[in-house]
């Protein structure tokens, strides 16, 4: 199935706060992050710690690389049939996110930190040689 992403102007909107958890939650929608999760986050230097459902999480903040924008996409209406394109809208944007590991300290070897390296390589390999 193919689809399109509708890009509308989101510069006026507030930045979203994002937490990437090391688990799959069978739920999609509003959650009481402000009351249940954020007040329990503890900071120790750069290292963050929290718990989810009683399990220990270690977290770190990560910034979206320069010249990139983080977007949260939302499908407001599901396609009626298999032939119809999916339409995703940008519901909010972010400049940083907090990702969490299950009971392991965060490090440069975490997949997400390593994956973001790609943006630097992409810039390098697509740069035109002006010299």
């Amino acid at each position, binding site marked *: 199935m193919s689809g399109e992403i509708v890009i509308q102007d989101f510069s006026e909107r507030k930045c979203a706060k994002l937490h990437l958890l090391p688990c799959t939650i069978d739920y999609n929608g509003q959650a009481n992050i402000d009351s*249940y*999760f954020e007040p329990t986050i503890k900071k120790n230097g750069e290292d963050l710690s929290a718990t989810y459902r*009683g399990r220990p999480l270690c977290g770190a903040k990560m910034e979206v690389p320069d010249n990139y924008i983080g977007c949260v996409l939302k499908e407001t209406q599901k396609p009626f049939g298999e032939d119809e394109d999916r339409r995703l809208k940008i519901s909010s944007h972010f400049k940083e996110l907090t990702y969490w590991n299950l009971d392991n300290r965060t490090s440069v070897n975490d997949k997400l930190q390593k994956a973001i*390296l790609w943006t630097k390589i992409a810039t390098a390999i697509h740069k035109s040689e002006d010299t």
Partner: protein
Amino acid sequence: MDISQYEMDNSKSCVLTSGTPQAAQNEPCCLGIDEAGRGPVLGAMVYGACYYPLSQSEKVKELGVADSKVLTEDMRDELFQKINSDDSVGWLVEIISPSDISTKMLARTKYSLNAVSHDAAINLIRQSIQKGVQVKEIYVDTVGVAENYQNKLSELFPDITIKVTPKADALFPCVSAASIIAKVTRDKVLSNWKFPEDESYNSSDYGCGYPSDPATQKWLNSNLDKVFGYPQFVRFSWSTCQKILDESAVRVHWEDDEEFDNDNTVSLLSFFTQKGVQEKAVKRHNFLESRKLKQVVKF
């Protein structure tokens, strides 16, 4: 008892102590250890230690200490005041936060409640010795098999006579005193609990925290958040809690769940299918594979 040090951050375990009596540093002492709040699904577990010179044993017995379970709350408070104001008796308590209990028991490498308990007792003995208390005899109420526990402690503290036994809180005055100190602390921690999650919880009636208490059951049933479960006040590792989460909260799948392992098991049928018939997917470069990067052209 002043528990403000713990209340500054009630997700973090901490040790509170009395002053160290001079007599306990000069004379051989006995030290008793007991726990309060091991069974409840709510709040902290408290380990208490009480020590005094062996020469004072009769005097302490005369204070009227007994197993904390047979005393009323008022009697315990009064006995604690007596213990606390006696200048030959010292005490320590370790408050193990409910969030520490949950995270230890639900860590990647599971840690049993018995191990948590043993560590707390060992920590209290070490801290007493560090304070200069001349510990010669230790009496502990058992957790798990008494013999194993006694051997474990004897190996760590070979110069001290150690006695681990069931019902130690009824047999030895120093353990009775420790049980009173632990219970008074546990009650205070439980009744003053400040919920960082939501202030409206502070005034809710959660009972004594035992799974059998109707007030505790009612609180658990009416305060479930389907995504987060409960505030950190609840011991998530308790089967009482797990059962409610399984039945009424949304499911959460973790990477170390057993079901994840099952997904990796190769189906027996796959050995019978002809190999090489299916078009082989192009293998991506290792740089991309290890970062889980994929090209998305359709979604």
